[in-house]
């Protein structure tokens, strides 16, 4: 995948100057003396207030990609490419600058709030700390703000001096969202923020997150395996497979009329209740994603693809334009292949 792909991932429809520009991002792990590529050339742009969903299955590199933007990847992983946050390359900038950007510029809602929160400190303290550090205000002022924030996510003032274990899973995830908002960032990266939560709590948390960012023009990158959820919470959707973006475009369009066969399989995996086509007919996809250590020629999805063509085994895939604001890494999306009716 090249950065110069015409009309590819990089272009947004808004006229704002980009908040975040990711160019040809690669993340490579060292494993037993071998290079294991987890992210293999990802490009996209976020404008202020943009919401981008990143979908894909475990091991597709979506979390690694998102966390490497703030250099939060595992120790020993090599990150290449450019991550321009308001024009500043976060991959090469000094640690002191990066620390300033984390929290105040871009913050993260991690999956599994129980392990992300400090078990021996009250939730109030954990939100006060970044406020004091970044905004240089007095503790009393920070406590007032933190209490307000917690109240806005549904944690009443009488409970803010509680410890993480005293809260339910849903409440802990609310605390995480309050923390992410604490220093008024321009970008929130939410890594599977509702995994392991009940459907009802999940809907509450997503609504809360959407509400929190709606008026403030905070950009959101949300990572999950649940395509249908993303369609409602994000304007745009990027689908990742084997370390690359294979489809990108407006959420509804990507979900309702996928260009890439992998996106199609993912969207069918969650049936529409009432749709006779899926009644007593679960849709799956045979096979497993390629192991990251494997290097291959042609399309990474070819082995599992129901519509594979001879050229898929040999040609190099790129994120080709596939309609206004859309792109897909499938030769069938190309007009001269005549694959799409």
């Amino acid at each position: 995948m090249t950065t110069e792909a015409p009309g590819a991932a990089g272009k947004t429809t808004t006229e704002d100057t980009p908040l975040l520009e990711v160019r040809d991002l690669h993340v490579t792990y060292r494993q037993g003396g071998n290079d294991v590529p987890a992210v293999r050339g990802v490009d996209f742009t976020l404008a202020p207030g943009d919401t981008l969903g990143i979908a894909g299955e475990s091991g597709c590199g979506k979390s690694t990609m998102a966390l490497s933007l703030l250099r939060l990847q595992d120790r020993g992983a090599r990150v290449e490419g450019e991550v321009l946050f308001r024009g500043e390359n976060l991959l090469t900038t000094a640690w002191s600058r990066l620390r300033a950007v984390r929290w105040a510029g871009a913050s993260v809602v991690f999956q599994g709030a129980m392990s992300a929160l400090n078990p021996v400190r009250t939730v109030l303290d954990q939100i006060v700390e970044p406020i004091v550090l970044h905004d240089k205000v007095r503790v009393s002022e920070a406590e007032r703000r933190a209490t307000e924030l917690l109240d806005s996510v549904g944690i009443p003032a009488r409970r803010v001096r509680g410890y993480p274990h005293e809260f339910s899973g849903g409440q802990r995830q609310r605390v995480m969202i309050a923390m992410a908002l604490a220093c008024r960032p321009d970008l929130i990266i939410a890594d599977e923020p509702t995994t392991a939560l009940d459907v009802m709590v999940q809907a509450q948390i997503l609504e809360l997150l959407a509400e929190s960012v709606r008026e403030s023009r905070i950009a959101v990158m949300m990572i999950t395996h649940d395509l249908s959820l993303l369609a409602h919470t994000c304007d745009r959707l990027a689908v990742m497979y084997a370390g690359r973006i294979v489809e990108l475009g407006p959420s509804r369009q990507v979900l309702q009329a996928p260009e890439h066969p992998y996106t199609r399989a993912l969207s069918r995996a969650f049936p529409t209740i009432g749709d006779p086509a899926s009644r007593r007919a679960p849709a799956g996809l045979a096979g497993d994603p390629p192991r990251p250590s494997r290097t291959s020629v042609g399309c990474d999805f070819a082995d599992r693809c129901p519509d594979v063509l001879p050229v898929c085994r040999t040609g190099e895939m790129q994120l080709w334009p596939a309609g206004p604001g859309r792109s897909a890494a499938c030769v069938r999306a190309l007009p001269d292949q005549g694959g799409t009716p």
Partner: protein
Amino acid sequence: MTGRPDESSTALEVRDLSVVYPAARGRGPARAVDGVNLRIGKGEIVALIGESGCGKSTLARTLVGLVRPTGGEVLHEGTALDYSARGLKRYRRHTQLVLQDPGGALNPKQNVYDAVALGPRLHGLTEDLPLTVHDALARAGLRPPEQYFDRYPHELSGGQQQRVVIAGVLALNPSVIVADEPVASLDASVRGEILKLILRLRDDLGLSALVVSHDLGLAWNIADRVAVMYLGRVVEQGTVEEVLLRPQHPYTRALLSVVPTGADDWRPTLLAGEPPDPTAIPAGCRFHPRCGRWADADPDTRAAGACDRRTLPVLAPDTSGAACHLLTSSHLENA
């Protein structure tokens, strides 16, 4: 409707079942299952739907004899469960449990052959064991089976691991499978493959199944009937079409509303508050503190319904309907 099984005979039934866990750390006893009637016909797939803490996993464990009920009984083909060590062992040849996380269910130091052979060995069914293991793996969709014999769990994908777990269950040739969130930890594309497998096992082998899940789409994909559980009780049950297309209970309606539809006008009905607490079950209808129908009802309806005081009868097995005071025509058993 295709492949509708013969439901005249019952594979597994629970009558007026309750499971109470003793009080702990200053809390009252937890009434995890609090009066449930449920029937699984031979060759039938029943989905038990609910949120965490509703008692669905406890009910599943009670069905396979891992938890002994505090009240009521479990009947296997009409006979009450015998809780002696011997009785349980005999019972477990027929009724097998599949758990959510195949990585945790498999012993990392045991290869696939030994994992699948474990059940037959425990039950002394070692005659033709290699053939049994071979067939079980093939039925679970791991082909050719010999290629998997020597592999260890860490060499398999999540979907393959779950297939090994299912093969281990099939090796005992059970008549009923109880599966607790069998696809919740699997990737989206693999989920459909495992669900297809469960459907095929029913069609080919006539297996009955209770599938416990929070996922209503799963019920639409594979189940014949659905029971929706809330705080230890079944609040609505019926055929998949009845419950999912014409839901009566406000809780079922709320659960259905939070499933994203992809439609532009999708508006979930969010229930206030956290999932409820089985150590503090509200009086009257146990759902009333979160019920929008009750909150919005006019004074006359509230007076007539008296949801905050009047106890609801337990739904009878095999009926279709919902346990709600505010329904005009609920099919309730007379309490």
